[in-house]
């Protein structure tokens, strides 16, 4: 349904007297992914890996530098504002920070009615009914419509953000760290709501997060990103049981598990994520990789089907580890 082809987003780094863009921050560097109807694609990586930028490109909050975003056959990447408008309602976004993503001066009713106004749907009465329906759907009382964002807790605000995103029956929801700002006991409430809405509305999610346990719980497939590229893509269970990329393995082993004294075989990676402005040559992971060879320093590995793995498991590493 949604297909990303070689999607690239380079931000110019302006410097010097003439403010020229001499260098580029390669936030997203040639990503090819697809998303099926009703599916959740998890996007995981450390800060600076380009996962949020990729999400913003999909809903066209960023204009990608190159590549295609095919939504049901139409390439959204080159479209301008007006041409894009009819598609916007099908691609919506849920943000991480439920405080900053809601206008503090508008009531919840006004915030939720806005999508309908922008797309010219219904009259005042119909909009009020829709708003009430949305609030009910995300588990908030109808009286919430007359209140302001500050009157709600983080979890409730995230429900409001979700209500706004689903207002126009979208096909794809890009969720950027939607539960990482929430308390543990609230996280599970909101995750359940995400799963419930997906079942009821047949939504497709691109679920961006750094918490692998959370991502694995909601996702059908997971893409691991490193420095703007997808390094591994596989069905969610597969990626946990038989990760092939050394980065994925290190990432999985780094998650602290809520089981005391289960510290077996942790791979502690040395060093930090390099800057996307000046990424390493060859395989971007080679400076931190315990298996790196001379070949990795010069030749960038392409995403290829993982050997002896079920279909749909791809990895970008020269070696079969």
């Amino acid at each position, binding site marked *: 349904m949604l297909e990303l082809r070689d999607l690239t987003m380079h931000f110019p780094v302006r410097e010097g007297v003439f403010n020229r863009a001499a260098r580029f921050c390669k936030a997203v560097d040639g990503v090819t992914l697809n998303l099926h109807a009703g599916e959740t694609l998890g996007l995981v990586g450390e800060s600076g890996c380009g996962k949020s930028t990729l999400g913003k490109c999909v809903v066209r909050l960023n204009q990608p530098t190159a590549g295609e975003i095919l939504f049901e056959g139409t390439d959204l990447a080159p479209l301008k504002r007006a041409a894009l408008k009819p598609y916007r309602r099908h691609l919506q976004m849920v943000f991480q920070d439920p405080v900053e993503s809601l206008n503090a001066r508008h009531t919840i009713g006004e915030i939720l009615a806005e999508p309908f106004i922008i797309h010219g749907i219904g009259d005042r009465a119909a909009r009020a009914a829709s708003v009430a329906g949305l609030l009910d759907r995300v588990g908030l009382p109808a009286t919430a419509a007359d209140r302001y964002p500050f009157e709600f807790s983080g979890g409730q605000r995230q429900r409001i953000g979700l209500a706004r995103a689903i207002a126009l029956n979208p096909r794809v929801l890009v969720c950027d760290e939607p539960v990482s700002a929430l308390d543990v006991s609230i996280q599970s409430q909101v995750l359940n709501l995400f799963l419930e809405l997906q079942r009821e509305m047949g939504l497709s999610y691109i679920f961006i997060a750094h918490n692998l346990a959370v991502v694995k719980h909601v996702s059908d497939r997971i893409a691991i990103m490193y420095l703007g590229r997808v390094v591994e893509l596989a069905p969610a269970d597969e990626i946990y049981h038989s990760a092939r990329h050394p980065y994925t393995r290190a990432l999985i082993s780094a998650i*602290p598990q809520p089981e005391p004294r289960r510290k077996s075989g942790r791979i502690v990676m040395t060093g930090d994520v390099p800057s996307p402005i000046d990424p390493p040559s060859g395989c971007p992971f080679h400076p931190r990789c315990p298996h790196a060879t001379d070949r990795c320093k010069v030749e960038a590995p392409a995403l290829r089907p993982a050997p002896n793995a079920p279909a749909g498991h791809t990895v970008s590493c020269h070696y079969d580890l």
Partner: protein
Amino acid sequence: MSDSSPSSPVLEVENLVTTFDTDAGTLTAVDGVSFTVKAGQTVGIVGESGCGKSVTALSIMRLLPQPMGQIAGGQIRLQGRDLVALPIDEMQQIRGGKIGMIFQEPMTALNPVHTIGRQLSEVFLLHLTKDPKDAWQRGVTMLQKVGIPAPEERMHEYPHQLSGGMRQRVVIAMALACEPSVVIADEPTTALDVTIQAQILELMQQLQRDLGLAIVLITHDLGVVAEMCDEVVVMYAGRVAESGPVESIFNHPTHPYTRGLLASIPRLSTPRKAKLPIIEGMVPSLADLPVGCRFQNRCPHRDDRCVELPPLEAVTPDHHCACHRWREIPAANVT
């Protein structure tokens, strides 16, 4: 981590009560919290936002926002000496001396306009030496100890030139500069990526082994607690809900809140897309606490007795739980 030899308590917090004067009246953020930390031991304080875990840390360091916050009762004993009544100048010697502090956000914990070297030597100049050259040299040694490559050069750099993980290492170096007996770490890895978090946690464990540190680790991440701590204190709305050895808390939680919390987190072993068990509702506001047990309005096991404040009862000699009904609730084995 902890050696098995019985060591004397380094830090004892007993019945700590911390209040805040606000427009809504006097609020009790921490209400009767007690715990003990021994040398070489890590005690984790866990809870959600507003449970009072950070206020507990600030109280121990006597860094409560003034004039609103004050310690209204209880004792905080560092190697037997009560810190609550200590004059402020003596407290300043203890802070950064006997007690080291690691904060969540290394960018705000460091001064952006001073070099790493200047900030790090300042700690030594305040506590250990009068000689700036000596202080500088000690700083270099400290950076080396926390695993910072090329420490001489890093000493001349500013915080913004370092990555998040490196900055947190600098903060740890500052906390450990004067060989403290206790380190209070408030969400030390929350702002870091998982792979960097793994590095920092490993560093903290290694330094603890080398120096015999007592660590108070404040966090909301149950995974971090399970990996790092010997003892756990679970806080809810300013009170201790449950406390005990980490295995006991994670494998045999007795308080309904701890049970709910442990059941609600998705694990790698949880079946995908299954409905997660939840704790209904949300943490009550301090201005509007229920009478009696503070968890009652979210508790699936509530009954008439819960309007009385439950005392902390011994489940086993070292595992305590504040619930009237813990004996009656069927034992749940959380795996």
